[in-house]
């Protein structure tokens, strides 16, 4: 009896360790252009960039190989930050996935910071969660040429904590 129990526990332990949750994030664009059309209306000479610029960029997130009722939290952070005072806002489109996979405490948006912040709370496997992006507080005098945007996504077990 004891041996069986030990074997069962070891089996569960190994299964649990070997189970590899997968996370994939695919962007629609590898390069996003910011042009004079993104200046603050009426886009005349002397104008700076609009305070919030919706980017022609989207991403699809896929979380697989998790148990059907497992709760998890997707977090995101950016390191290093974008040049100047510009920041990136990420908006999860909750309507892009079935309602039963949306957990509690899913935030409506995330301002990218160097520390991980909750982006989406999920239940079980999720496919094609859509993310949209806006560029905030870009300035003509600070944001020039090509600037890489690095975003790290973390998948944690357990739902997201309540927001502030």
């Amino acid at each position: 009896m004891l041996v069986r129990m030990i074997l069962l526990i070891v089996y569960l332990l190994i299964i649990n360790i070997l189970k590899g949750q997968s996370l994939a994030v695919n962007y629609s664009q590898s390069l996003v252009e910011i042009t004079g059309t993104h200046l603050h209306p009426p886009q005349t000479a002397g104008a700076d960039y609009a305070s919030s610029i919706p980017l022609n960029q989207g991403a699809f997130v896929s979380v697989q190989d998790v148990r059907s009722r497992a709760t998890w939290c997707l977090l995101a952070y950016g390191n290093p930050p974008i040049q100047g005072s510009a920041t990136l806002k990420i908006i999860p489109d909750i309507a892009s996935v079935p309602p039963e996979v949306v957990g509690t405490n899913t935030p409506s948006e995330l301002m990218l910071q160097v520390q991980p912040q909750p982006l989406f709370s999920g239940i079980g496997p999720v496919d094609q969660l859509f993310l949209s992006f806006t560029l905030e507080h870009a300035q003509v005098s600070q944001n020039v040429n090509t600037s890489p945007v690095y975003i790290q996504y973390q998948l944690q077990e357990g739902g997201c904590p309540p927001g502030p």
Partner: protein
Amino acid sequence: MKHRIICSILALFAFLTPSAQIIWTEEHTHFDLHFEPIALIAVSQQEIQLSPSMTTTSGLPAFTDSLSASFHLRYTISPVSPGPQLVHSVSLPIGLSSSWSTIPFLPASGTCSLAPSATHNGTDQLLASNIFGHSGTAPQDGIPLTVRISWSHQQYQNLVANLHLLNLTYQCL
């Protein structure tokens, strides 16, 4: 002994089983933001009304008249290509030749700045000025630009009206 083994395994299991703090996996991504060079230059349109006929002591129109007008120039420029050029041109009424110059302006900052006075002695079209300076991108609220135009007595007499519109355009290349 049995109890101790079970407790040890359970403890190990609890340790290795993911909790709310455990990171399952992490994905590193990146894309590029490309900020296109912006060169917007606006010159307020201004009508220059010629003064009433300027006469000399002989009662004839002066051989050379001079007009000056200040234009409010506002621009936003982000770095363009190396060695940017600011080109301006003026269109004068048909049949009128001109000689004119711009007073140089040197903005405190900006990608394009106008080099020393440009003078043109051609017909009715103008002119390119050298540019120097590549000192920043701060938007300028206004840069006074003075255009002086002079013409001959004959040209003066050819003016068919007292109101003429000088169209000036600016382009940062």
